[in-house]
Structure formats: C-alpha cells, structure tokens
C-alpha cells in the first residue's frame, strides 16, 4: 500500500522546474519589475547618504515637531544623534531608503487595490487568501526564488519587504472604505454624485484615518523585514545584526537591533500623528 517513506508527489521538484522555467523564459518580465524599484531605491538612497547628516536630522526633527509636538521632536533629535554616535549613520540611511522605497510601492499598489476590495465583495474575497499567504508564508520560503529572479542585493531586499509589508495597507484601506456609513454614500448618490465623486469626496476622505493606520502598519512591517532582507545581501541596519550573529559578536548585533527599534519608534510616532491630525478635522 502507501509507503510514506517514499515521495509520491514531487512538488518540490515541480516548483524548482517552474522557477527555472520562469527565470529562463520571463527574465524581461522580472527586469520590468526590478527596474522601477531599483531606480527609486538608488534615488532615495543616494539622496539620503549624500545629504549632510545634520540636515537630515534637522528635517526629521522639524517634521516631528510640525506633526506632533515638542516632545516627539526632541525624542527624534536625540535618537538620530545617538544612532550617528554609534557609527551606524550610513547603515541607517540605507535602511531608511529601503523602507521608504518599499512603502512608496506598497502605497502606490496597495491603496488602489484596497479601494477596489472595499467597493467590490467579489474582488475582496479573491484577494483575501492572497493577502493571507503573503503575511503568513515564512519570508525564508520566498527569499530563494526572489534571489533567483532578481539576484542578491538591496533591490531583492526591497522586493521581499514589499511582499511582506503590502497586506496591511490593502486591508486597512478596504476596511476604511467599508466603514464609511452607507447613508453617506447614498446621500452623495442622491445628489447626483458619479462613482468617482463618491470615492473622491466621501469615501477616501472618511477612510483616510484608517488608511493612515494601514500606512503606519506597512512601515512597521517593512522595518521588521530589515534583518531578513540582510540575509539576501541587502545592506543597512540588518547587515551588522547578521554579521554579529555569524561571528557571535553580541555587541554588534545589539547596536544594529537597537537602532532598528529606535528608527521604528520614530517612524511609528510620526506616522501615527499624521493619522491623528487628519482625524481631528
């Protein structure tokens, strides 16, 4: 009968064949995906690295002050100076560039998808299992095909980050659209709003706080991928952590990890207050 010591379904081989076939035949397609990401990433990265650290620090401090207040701006100032003093400024800027780049693409792709999912039940139920898979599949599983398709480096790191960080902004955009009271949509329609006007004048403005929460979550998820992305050769704050891990250098791994946490806190607080200012309106 069945002998479970033998493999009857060689799914792993099939997948390997499939990936080989993809790499061989559809290189142009993956280059097409890679190119805009690479372009955006190098742009942001060069910008952040080239600008004098003090200007970058001043900019973030100012943004924190405008959006939240004195407390957050002082925290931002101290944190960024501290990271600079740890000698991790450049790594931090690379990480920031990768996170920003991933978030830009997540936003550009995620908000329209979220709006579609919010307005169509059918699209929503089709999208849902895909999002579940994106969030639950261990990153290590898709690191290998990503490396095969896009080779190692920062761009591959960003692409892996996008896969992981995209779902929250889609989900929360969809939720935000769905949470708009049906009476408000009905009222807009009764006064002769087109579908586009309903979206632009009613649904998006009212969903904005929820969309902002989604953006915040996407940023946090992107930051949590920094170390994993470093496994496939991405630079930034993940690199000292991986190096520390490999050489049992606890100190190096710790300052890398600490910097990630600090950057995460700063970005989280800033984006949270972004959502709140909109809400208070």
């Amino acid at each position, binding site marked *: 009968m069945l002998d479970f010591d033998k493999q009857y379904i060689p799914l792993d081989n099939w997948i390997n064949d499939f990936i080989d076939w993809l790499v061989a035949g559809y290189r142009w397609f993956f280059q097409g995906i890679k190119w805009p990401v690479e372009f955006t990433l190098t742009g942001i990265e060069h910008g952040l690295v080239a600008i004098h650290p003090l200007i970058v620090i001043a900019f973030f401090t100012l943004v924190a002050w405008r959006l939240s207040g004195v407390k957050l701006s002082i925290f931002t100032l101290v944190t960024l100076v501290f990271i600079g003093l740890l000698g991790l400024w450049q790594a931090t800027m690379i990480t920031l560039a990768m996170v920003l780049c991933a978030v830009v693409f997540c936003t550009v792709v995620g908000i329209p998808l979220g709006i579609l999912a919010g307005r169509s039940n059918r699209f929503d139920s089709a999208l849902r299992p895909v999002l579940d898979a994106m969030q639950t599949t261990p990153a290590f599983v898709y690191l290998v095909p990503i490396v095969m398709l896009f080779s190692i480096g920062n761009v591959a790191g960003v692409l892996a980050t996008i896969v992981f960080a995209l779902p929250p902004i889609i989900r929360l955009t969809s939720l935000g659209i769905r949470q708009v*009271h049906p*009476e*408000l949509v*009905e*009222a*807009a*329609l*009764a*006064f*002769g*709003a*087109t579908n586009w*006007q309903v979206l632009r*004048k*009613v649904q998006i*403005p*009212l969903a904005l706080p929820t969309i902002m929460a989604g953006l915040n979550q996407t940023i946090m998820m992107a930051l949590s991928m920094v170390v994993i992305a470093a496994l496939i050769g991405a630079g930034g704050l993940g690199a000292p952590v991986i190096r520390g891990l490999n050489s049992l250098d606890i100190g190096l791994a710790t300052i890398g990890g600490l910097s990630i946490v600090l950057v995460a806190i700063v970005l989280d607080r800033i984006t949270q207050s972004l959502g709140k200012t909109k809400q208070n*309106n």
Partner: protein
Amino acid sequence: MVKIAVKNLFKVFGDDPRKGLEMIKSGKTKEEIYEQEKLTVGVQDATFDINKGEIFVVMGLSGSGKSTLVRMLNRLIEPTAGEVLVDGENVLTMNRAELVDFRRSKTSMVFQSFALMPHRTVIDNAAFGLELSGADKAKRYERCATALKQVGLEGWENAYPNQLSGGMQQRVGLARGLAVDPDIMLMDEAFSALDPLIRTEMQDELLKIQDHDERTIVFISHDLDEALRIGDRIAIMEGGRVVQVGTPEEILQNPADEYVRAFFRGVDPTGVIAAGDIARDSQPTVVWHTPQGSIRATLELLNTRDMEFAYVLDSEKRYYGIVSTDTLREALERGSTKINDAFITEAQAVQVTESLQDILPDVASRTWPIPVVDENNVYKGVVSKNRFLRTLQRAGDGTHFETQESQANPQPEQEPAHA
C-alpha cells in the same frame, strides 16, 4: 398638474426578482413568496400621481415599503417593474449620465439620519450638491448662504456637524436639499429622529419655506400627526401596497380599510381611551346671564385672548353652547343682545364616556374643539383635532396616551453627537 406619476411600480428584493414578480401576478401573497423563494416584496403595484407644488406624505408603519418607494423615485433603489414619470419623462429608462443629471437638477433628498459629511463644514455640506455639478466656489457659497439663512443657520457656516444639535444638523440637511433649488424634494422620515418640540418647529419651518417656493415635496413619515399637519395629500402604505390616497380629511372621514382605520383607533381595542380622558380645559368659557356673558363682553374676551371660540356655561358649569367671533359679530349686527342668538347651531357636546372612535366624525368635521360633558351635562373641557391626533399617535406607538393629569414631558433637545 401632475409632477410625478407612479405607475404599477414593483420592487422585489432577492436573487431572482422576476420570479417574485410573476408570483405576485399569479396572486401569491408576500408571505408565500418569502416562504417559497426567499424573495422579499418591498413594494407591489404602487400607482398614484403627485401634483406640482404639493406636500405628498407617504405614511405607513416600518416595513410597509415607504422608504423603498421613495428611493425608487430617484432610483437609489432600482425598481423591478413599473414606471416613474417626472414631468412626463420616464426615470427608469434613463442611462447613467441622464440619471446623474436628473438627480443633480431636479431632485434633492433629506434623510432621517441627516447623512451629513462629518469632514465638511456646515456650508460645505450645504454646498455639496452644487459642488457635484461643478459650480464654482463663489457661486456655491452665495446660493448656500441664502439656503442657510432660510433654515436659520446664519453664523454657523464654518462649524462642523458634530458641533451641532440634532435639530440643527437636520437644518443643514434641509439647507443642502434647498441649495440645489430642486423641483422635487424627497424627505425620508426627515424629522423622525428629532424630539417632538424640535420636530414641530421643523415642520413649521418646512411649511414656511413651502409658502413661497412651491416645491413638490414627497415626505415619508410613520407619524400620523406629522402627516396630517403638513400633508396636502397622504398615501397610506401597508405591506408594500398603497392602500389609500387622499387629503387628510378624506382619509380621516372615510378610511379605506381596517388597516387605515387602525391608525386612527390606535392599539386599544376595548376603547379604554374615552373623550373624558383627553378633554382639556384649554378654551375660554363664559357664564350665561352674567355681564361677562354678554355678546359684547364675550367678543371682547375672544379678541383680547386671540381665540375664536367661547364655550357658554351656566353658573353650575353646565354646558349650553358654543359661540364664535363670527357668530357673535353677526348677532351684534342683527341687534341681538342675548348670547344664545349667537350659538353655533351645529355644535353638539359629546359624553365623557364616548370612545375616540365614536367622536371621530365630530372631531374631523368641525372646525371648533368638541366640548365634552358628563351625564349631568357638566362641561369637562374640549377635545381639539390636534389633541385627538396626538393621542391616537401615542396609542398607536404603543406608548402611554396623554391624559389630563399626565402630560408628556418634552425631552430636552438632543445632545450634540460626538464623532
């Protein structure tokens, strides 16, 4: 002149509404259709005309299909079958662009839940309709300033809806409806969420606006009092059918069936509510054979108190008759001095024990409040039309009815809602 003609309009909710339609036509009831096919019949075979410039009230209990009906007039709900002709043009055959244009130019709507945009200021809410049709900002604000003035909201232009009380929020809703200067205004239970005092105030406001604008208003209500107060004509709906259409008087005097009658009878089958229960001593009385009871003195009394009718009693409070300012003046002109020459001849008192059903014809047909007397002909007060209808409404709502002792406390105005 007919503004809106509704012809054989049907709405069936569910997966296969056509099937439900066939079942209705083959004589199946709403319940059978739900039982067999899980299809809900919203409106069946509604046919009526709405005249230009009238307030047409659609009345019915919840679930009677009145909200569905009004939403089919501007196709917020797509009818299953039938015709809606506005100025002779069939709304149901319009394509998307025509429909959008129809909604922008001809109709507006006021909602029970107000449905104001919380992220917009009062003036931007009021300007919403104009904004959709692409009017520039200066023109929008100019038109809205007029609309806000009409509803008494000057000075609140830059407030947000959550800073306003319920009544004020609905004024914004009303201003939004008026700002586009529509031919037809659809009002879906527009005042039902407001407490009674504010509701009455808003009804007056609407009547005042209607005085010089003459729009066609379709007003949905479950409140009999409201329907009678503002409606030029009333349609009564039950289970998706329009069971009667007529003026308030016609419906009061000739209810089409048991259901319509039930509105006026309330839920009290034993007739516990009697004339004496709701009689109120709200009208001026004069005592016969005294100087104060002379024709001149009575007329003087009515003029100073700005009332129309006086009730003539003797010193034992026994009821003798009703005089009006008109009959008193006529009697004076004839040179009469005795007040019984000025009695309204048709006036009759009802007994305290008579049920509301019994006194209905009198209340409905007389312009004066009906006097109520006990078995010894002692005057106990009057029942006015308003009081009568209020009582029925209370009874119909299943809540207590007002008696002379317990008068309903008006609720404080709604707290501003917090977003």
